[in-house]
């Protein structure tokens, strides 16, 4: 039997490996769907085997878990998996109903419905399988969480439910942020931040709690642990799946993308399971026999709290509220879970079910509102303090509803405007009603007209009980560490994203190596060719650079750096890709530009409210065209729509402009068309100058400030002019705008302009002299090495070489400094949290002085005592760090996936996130050092306690 199981597991893992191989070697990718199906089959067999071997009372749960997993498979399975899930769930429902396990039966029934729906959807709309799987996945998570809540019978449910609510709030905020336009940035951002922090704190609590609980439950069956670990592993699964999908991005079919989910899920779950087994085995081998471990463990579990004040207030409440029906006091029920599931389903399915009359947000709000109403009702009907905690989810759900409705509230209809207010007011109203009831009842009590059945003296007592579990204070410090680590990872990742984005833009625009010589380069083109032939370099092109002012009919710019470049080769291609209008081609062929009229005043093209890049191109209703540069050349509103095809400027150029041969080819029909078009214009409007003028490519901000567009005429003014009869006269020359680029760096977009090398030489009066060579590398990290290599080469004598980092030293060092400062500042959170660990350990030591003394009496040495408390502190730190890392990674995943839109000023569309493994590791290690250091002090203190003193303190 064991061998059968082992070989099945091996086959399962083999399939996983094969799927992974499919991502690495696209040739094998066609097997992926088959392998995923095979895996599903193997899993079913394994689980059936486990079912056969399981204890009878576990079978139902096991079957249910399997069914859940099956129904949540996010790939179309020809309704196979849902059918299996349906059968399993049906069996579980029947069996558990017979054995009077109603909750389990209800869960099975719910799953029955879910899998039936899923199966139908699989047949009718296989393309929605991913969505359906995700939907069931949400239900799975909800159900598991609820099941965990019930099976753990601890009084931390309020925390959990609050967590879930806060999470919903945060997610709602995040999602509605996507809906909200950037104009409401500040409000939404603030709300989002608040929601996110709340949510994060909640997730921190949840994760740490789950961690601790799952470790506490190491004695449970493996499969239970497996299921238990599922919620913990969902977030990493997501991340890994994303990574896998990126690996498999070569395969276009969406199936493969989802297929990536399968090995990721297996991988993470198996890893978690192996970890669990390892910990359990290690614990079994050394734990019980090791007095230090055993004592530390007992201490961790046994910090007790007497909830007297709580109980007292419970009793007070109970005296005032009527008992409606027994059992109305629980916080969560399967009905609540179902309502939550409906809310979740309405959320997930909103885009599918919505139509013009019911926009998605309305459906979502309906789902959330329903759940809010349900919880409010439960809170109102509650007869116990636990039941009253229903207010929390009710409040959170109501605010989530309000938030979802926010876009509507800002809409035109006055009714809609009041919706969010109403949604938010609802729970307040409920609470007010509840208080009114209480007041009325207390009046009745005072008069003595209260029914006997409601008499608090006859009601059963609420017992004051000692609670056993993970100590609250240690728990709090664990959460503190988790939040610190979380914040560090998220902030550092966002900052890394920002600086990476910035660097990327600089790298794309600027020279990686700038080669110059004091007296001009002797033979720049040969030199460039030699350098360009190196393995590390991508291109090397000579250029000249100078400063000039630029003026249009509207405005005069400040100093602009003019670069004279060779408009062909790699550098030109890169420039071409950053163009939003025009083409590099026009640098080479300014004559193509000539015929175009100077465009109307820019005010028309740059409306203040809609300053999108498409506006620059002059085609407001075709923003997509803005991206393909040559089409951006159609800034002629006069052309009638029904103009003959031939008149339309260069439809073909759009496709092959970047790949055009570098030298002018006069026979090329592509070049003829605009000329023909131009000549028409030249005829029709005689006021345009038909003289061919050189052209220049300028940045989008410069274009905006000058109010020019492609084809416009501008004047370059050189500051060092010729000495004429009236003193120094600036040299001026007319250019046409050949293109407009956008690098994403404001400075470059405002201060940079490109023209051809000869034109620049002529304008700056340089003759044949070329000063500079722009070298681009494959890998910027090799800049220093390449420089050394070049300086050592025989042609490198007398050259001066600057790297990109040197030229932008200020920026790069500022970015680095910023990150270091953030690291330190946020590191303080962890430091503070570690003081929490110290404090809670000190409390523990104070409470356990007697125990410490008796251990010493029995022969424990001082270092044993130290180790007990050190272990406790280090373990709390470790738990906190682990949860923080998971939270941080999943938050980064969520941010990257949802994309937080940034306002225009930031020049980056959405919040960039870049998770660096080394940084996460650094954070984790730093946090570990801090917490371990923090654990050392209380440990030493405990070890130093005088034995006899401890014995006396016990009394």
């Amino acid at each position, binding site marked *: 039997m064991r061998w059968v199981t082992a070989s099945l597991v091996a086959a399962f893992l083999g399939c996983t490996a094969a799927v992974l191989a499919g991502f690495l070697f696209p040739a094998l990718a066609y097997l992926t769907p088959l392998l995923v199906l095979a895996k599903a089959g193997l899993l079913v067999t394994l689980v059936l085997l486990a079912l056969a071997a399981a204890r009878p009372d576990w079978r139902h749960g096991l079957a249910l878990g399997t069914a859940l997993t099956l129904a949540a498979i996010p790939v179309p399975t020809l309704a196979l998996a849902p059918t299996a899930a349906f059968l399993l769930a049906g069996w579980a429902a029947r069996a558990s109903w017979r054995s009077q396990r109603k909750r389990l039966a209800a869960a099975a029934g719910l799953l029955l419905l879910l899998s039936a729906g899923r199966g139908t959807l699989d047949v009718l709309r296989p393309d929605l399988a991913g969505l359906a799987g995700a939907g069931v996945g949400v239900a799975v998570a909800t159900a598991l969480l609820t099941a965990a809540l019930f099976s753990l019978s601890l009084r931390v449910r309020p925390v959990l439910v609050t967590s879930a609510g806060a999470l919903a709030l945060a997610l709602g905020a995040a999602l509605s942020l996507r809906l909200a336009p950037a104009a409401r940035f500040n409000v939404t951002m603030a709300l989002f931040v608040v929601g996110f922090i709340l949510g994060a704190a909640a997730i921190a609590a949840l994760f740490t709690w789950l961690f601790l609980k799952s470790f506490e439950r190491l004695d449970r069956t493996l499969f239970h642990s497996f299921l238990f670990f599922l919620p913990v592993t969902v977030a990493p699964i997501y991340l890994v799946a994303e990574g896998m999908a990126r690996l498999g991005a070569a395969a276009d079919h969406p199936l493969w993308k989802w297929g990536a989910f399968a090995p990721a899920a297996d991988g993470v779950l198996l890893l978690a399971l192996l970890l669990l087994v390892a910990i359990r085995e290690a614990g079994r081998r050394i734990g019980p026999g090791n007095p230090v471990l055993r004592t530390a463990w007992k*201490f961790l579990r046994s910090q007790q709290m007497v909830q007297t004040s709580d109980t007292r207030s419970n009793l007070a409440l109970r005296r005032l509220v009527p008992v409606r029906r027994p059992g109305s006091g629980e916080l969560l029920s399967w009905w609540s879970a179902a309502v939550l599931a409906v809310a979740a389903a309405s959320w997930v399915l909103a885009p599918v079910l919505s139509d013009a009359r019911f926009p998605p947000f309305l459906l979502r709000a309906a789902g959330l509102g329903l759940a809010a109403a349900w919880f409010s009702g439960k809170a109102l009907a509650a007869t116990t303090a636990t039941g009253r905690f229903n207010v929390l989810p009710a409040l959170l759900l109501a605010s989530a509803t309000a938030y979802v409705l926010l876009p509507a509230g800002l809409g035109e209809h006055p009714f809609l405007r009041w919706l969010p207010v109403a949604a938010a007011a609802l729970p307040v109203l409920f609470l007010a009603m509840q208080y009114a009831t209480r007041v009325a009842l207390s009046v009745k009590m005072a008069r003595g007209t209260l029914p006997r059945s409601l008499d608090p003296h006859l009601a059963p007592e609420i017992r004051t009980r000692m609670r056993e579990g993970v100590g609250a204070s240690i728990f709090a410090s664990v959460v503190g560490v988790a939040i610190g680590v979380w914040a560090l990872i998220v902030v550092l990742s966002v900052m890394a994203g920002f600086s990476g984005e910035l660097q990327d833009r600089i790298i794309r625009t600027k020279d990686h190596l700038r080669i110059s010589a004091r007296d001009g380069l002797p033979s720049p083109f040969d030199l460039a060719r030699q350098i360009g032939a190196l393995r590390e370099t991508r291109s090397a092109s000579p250029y000249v650079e100078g400063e000039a002012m630029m003026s249009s009919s509207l405005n005069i710019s400040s100093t602009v750096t003019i670069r004279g470049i060779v408009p062909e080769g790699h550098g030109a291609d890169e420039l071409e890709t950053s163009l939003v209008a025009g083409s590099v081609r026009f640098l080479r062929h300014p004559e193509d530009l000539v015929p175009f009229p100077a465009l109307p005043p820019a005010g028309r093209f740059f409306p203040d409210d809609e300053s999108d890049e498409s506006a620059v191109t002059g085609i407001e209703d075709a923003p997509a065209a803005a991206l393909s540069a040559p089409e951006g050349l159609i800034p002629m509103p006069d052309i009638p729509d029904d103009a003959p095809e031939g008149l339309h400027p260069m439809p073909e150029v759009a496709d092959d402009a970047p790949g055009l041969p570098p030298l002018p080819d006069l026979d090329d029909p592509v070049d003829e068309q605009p000329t023909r078009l131009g000549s028409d214009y030249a005829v029709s409007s005689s006021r345009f100058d038909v003289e061919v003028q050189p052209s220049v490519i300028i940045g989008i901000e410069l274009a905006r400030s000058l109010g020019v567009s492609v084809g416009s005429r501008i004047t370059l003014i050189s500051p060092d002019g010729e000495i004429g009869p009236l003193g120094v006269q600036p040299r001026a020359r007319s250019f046409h705008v050949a293109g407009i680029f956008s690098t994403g760096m404001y400075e470059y977009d405002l201060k940079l302009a490109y023209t051809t090398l000869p034109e620049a030489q002529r304008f700056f009066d340089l003759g044949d002299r070329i000063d500079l060579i722009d070298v681009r590398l494959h890998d910027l990290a090799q800049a220093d090495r390449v420089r050394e290599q070049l300086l050592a080469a025989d042609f490198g004598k007398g050259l001066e070489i600057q790297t990109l980092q040197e030229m932008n030293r200020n920026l790069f060092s500022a970015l680095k400094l910023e990150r270091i400062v953030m690291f330190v500042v946020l590191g303080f959170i962890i430091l503070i949290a570690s003081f929490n660990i110290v404090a809670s350990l000190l409390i523990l030591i104070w409470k356990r002085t007697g125990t410490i003394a*008796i251990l*010493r009496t029995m022969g424990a040495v001082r270092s044993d005592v130290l180790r007990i408390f050190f272990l406790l502190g280090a373990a709390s730190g470790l738990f906190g760090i682990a949860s923080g890392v998971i939270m941080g990674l999943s938050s980064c995943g969520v941010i990257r996936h949802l994309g937080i839109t940034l306002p225009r000023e930031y020049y980056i569309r959405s919040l960039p996130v870049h998770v660096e493994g080394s940084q996460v590791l650094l954070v984790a290690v730093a946090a570990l050092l801090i917490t371990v250091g923090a654990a050392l002090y209380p440990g030493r203190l405990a070890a130093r306690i005088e034995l006899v003193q401890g*014995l006396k303190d016990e009394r």
Partner: protein
Amino acid sequence: MNADSGPLLEVQALAKSYFHLGREVPVLKGVDVTLASGEMLAVVGKSGVGKSTFLHVAGTLDRPSSGKVLYEGSDVFERPDDELARFRNRHLGFVFQFHHLLPEFNALENVMMPALLGRMALPEATRRATTLLDQVGLSHRLTHRPGELSGGEQQRVAIARALVMQPRILFADEPTGNLDERTSEDVHELLFRLNRELGIGLVIVTHSFALARRIGRCLHMRDGRMEPGIEESPAP
């Protein structure tokens, strides 16, 4: 057990002082006691005369200001703290007035603890602890926590714990001070039986003269000194 050698425990000129606000407060002022292997000894006296301090120092829980404690002829306080702890673990057992059981551990675990601290393997420790708990009549209470046991049961668990390493001497500090008469009697019987059957030396600090009389040898402590014999004094 080698009965022919010298005394098992020899306390010589033991003095212990505490310092309060810079002033020396002498508690023990030169105590001399010897205990042969398997012998029983009762120490009686009023509250605050230093009985417990004597027990702590003789039991190596505290270091004396001056004087020596010899076990089989060797001075134990020449050893460093950690070695002293190991010595205690292997050769001495303690029972206190307040049972001092670890509240988080069940009876079996409590009894096993000294064995585990002595780096004994778990199965062996479990076996010994189970046997001992059976001997003290608690085989049905193995998994109960101290909070779930009665006072007498708790004290019996404490005794079992003190014996798990098979010590040569058992120090008992008012072992029945908190128990009613009937239960006290049971606990006393248990102690005597263990002394008889296992040959464990017993040092009992008590202010119960009834108990002291039943133990053959009795020392009276007064003003930090040890005097032989029981002097009747009206204890309130």
